[in-house]
């Protein structure tokens, strides 16, 4: 029946390609414009938050923590309002995860504080005695990569039109502007300014000293990011 095709490798390969490409075209393409539109109240990440997001990714936090609240009572009871597509409009990459070894973090900024994260990241057992999460103490002594975060902001602004330095609508009807530096120097200053606010709520003296010196440890950036998840 198909013997002729099996003697013609070129046509065979073309046939296979059409058959496998078909589903992708129909499922993926139509959704593109629709899904990437932000909901009101969703704003781009600041330089420090983005640096924190890179720390999150570097350590594969997404291997154990999801950022996707499904529309079930048990999940909205535990984590807050179920996730909306537009809330992810500035997430490149998405960080939904596929395994919840630890709890979901999509709205962790609503119910955890800077101080909680500080203690928990240094030694999770001090907060949750039977936890299986390891500590991440090196984040207190390694500095965050602010320059790369700035490069990422520039990239998404230039290639994908992410609205930095532009008014973004908020839920209460007001607008807010997420600032992005005009140069590396200004970007570092903006990040440091934000880092000082986070460090003010922290206890670790070495971290406070580092920030006072103008350095930004990874933990400060990470907490800024986690606090932004609402």
């Amino acid at each position, binding site marked *: 029946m198909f*013997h002729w095709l099996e*003697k013609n490798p070129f046509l065979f390969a073309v046939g*296979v390609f059409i058959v496998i490409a078909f589903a992708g075209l129909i499922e993926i393409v139509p959704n593109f414009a629709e899904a990437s539109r932000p909901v009101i109240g969703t704003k781009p990440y600041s330089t420090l938050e983005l640096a924190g997001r890179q720390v999150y990714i570097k350590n594969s936090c997404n*291997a154990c923590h999801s950022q996707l609240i499904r529309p079930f009572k048990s999940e909205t009871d535990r984590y807050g309002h179920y996730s909306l597509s537009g809330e992810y409009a500035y997430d490149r990459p998405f960080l939904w995860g596929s395994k919840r070894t*630890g709890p979901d973090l999509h709205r962790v900024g609503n119910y955890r504080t800077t101080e909680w994260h500080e203690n928990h990241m240094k030694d999770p057992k001090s907060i949750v005695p039977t*936890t299986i999460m390891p500590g991440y103490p090196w984040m207190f002594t390694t500095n965050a990569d602010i320059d790369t975060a700035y490069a990422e902001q520039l990239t*998404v602004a230039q290639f994908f039109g992410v609205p930095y330095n532009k008014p973004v609508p908020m839920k209460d009807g007001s607008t807010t502007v997420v600032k992005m530096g005009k140069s590396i120097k200004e970007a570092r200053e903006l990040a440091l300014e934000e880092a000082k606010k986070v460090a003010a709520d922290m206890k670790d003296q070495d971290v406070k000293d580092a920030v006072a010196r103008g350095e930004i440890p990874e933990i400060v950036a990470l907490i800024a990011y986690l606090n932004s998840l609402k």
Partner: protein
Amino acid sequence: MENRPLEYDYTVAKMFMLTTIILGIVGMAIGVFIAFELAFPGLNTVFGEGLAEYTNFSRLRPLHTDAVAFGFTVSGIFATWFYVGQRVLKVSMAESKFLMFIGKLQFWLYVIGVAAVVVSLFMGYTTSKEYAEFEWPIDIAIVVVWVLWGVSIFGLIGIRREKSLYISVWYYIATFLGVAMLYLFNNMEVPTMLATSPAGEGAIGDWMHSVSMYAGTNDALVQWWYGHNAVAFVFTVPIIAMIYYFLPKESGQAIYSYKLSLLSFWGLMFVYLWAGGHHLLFSTVPDWMQTMGSIFSVILILPSWGSAINMLLTMKGEWQQVAASPLIKFMVLASTFYMFSTLEGPIQAIKSVNAIAHFTDWIVGHVHDGTLGWVGFMIIAALYHMAPRVFKRELYSKSLMAAQFWIQTLGIVLYFTSMWIAGITQGMMWRAHDEFGNLAYSFIDTVDVLHPYYALRGTGGLLYLAGFFIFAYNIYKTWTSNKEVDAERLNASPMGA
């Protein structure tokens, strides 16, 4: 000249056999280690606080998945291609200096690529997308390796003597095309060094870093279209290519039904790609897509079982071989695990089941009965069949092979049963409410209860790894110390006691 039988050249096949075994050990050992880290978290710092950054669960997890998928499995795919391809096309690699050069080049670039992956993942360079964690320079290297493999496939086909392409070749071609398409589209990313600041500064920050071309829900959609179909085109399609060649060869039986193989092949090609949406049930992707993913996952049972049944019926009337040969055992159990896992998957893709199963260890269990039982066993069987023919020696030990089979089978059973219980337990506890309508358990309650199952799972993995060491030893002894065989055995591989 023309009257002599063809002398096939297995140089490249042997090279990839070596990486199959080495990367298999690396990937599985990391897997066992991180499995025990979940059971005994103290292991995260077992190499010292200073190294904890590189040895904790989260940093190692992508290394495990990538080492077994793109190290062990892809090496196995390449090794079998450079063996099977020549034989079913009736042409020797030695006949083309060009193809031999391309094959060796592919191998060395692959080795360099693997080294770059290992180093960069340890350092924390990752895009975070599962099974596509590599940053853009490595992506480019991977594309080059893949194109070289394409040159090998179509080059060998171009100079073939056997005009009709055997079923295995269909599946290898599909593997090549499928992975190429998926990998390219999922890894579309913009290196951040391309951006310039308003002040005119360029090449800012880390040159390895990149941003995904897709955002949020779209990114998830593309990623799971990729992630699911990477399972199709790395863990299913090429493994079927192997079993269609090695089972009839080793058993001396003809394939049960040509029509069934046609139906399964084209059915699998068409249906598989739709099913990716089942990874995103109850997420923010449109409902119709989720439903399509669910429905097509169930339909997927047909072509999957088509292949598996075709394999099992190939053994019709020859079942005594299953008892007699551990090599046949590996392949028959592989197709059985294939049936098992392709029934379990669609069940998990049903929305109401997925509501409980998603995000839990049941999914991890499902992946592993497929990979350990089907992929692992089939690649092991393929290498066992190839070894006497490429080394021209008798397989070192049949009894070691049988011991390996039973140890690994026990390991798999421990693995998936513990993960079933763990997954369903946790899924049910997450959703449990008490009589007042409040959540019955805090999150940590649902973690504490998993400890015994995590310990069992680690033990299952350890048994499988132990079996894999026996395999490596058996192949090594076959290669170095055993009796030479003059004439190649047509079917049942020669084995020492």
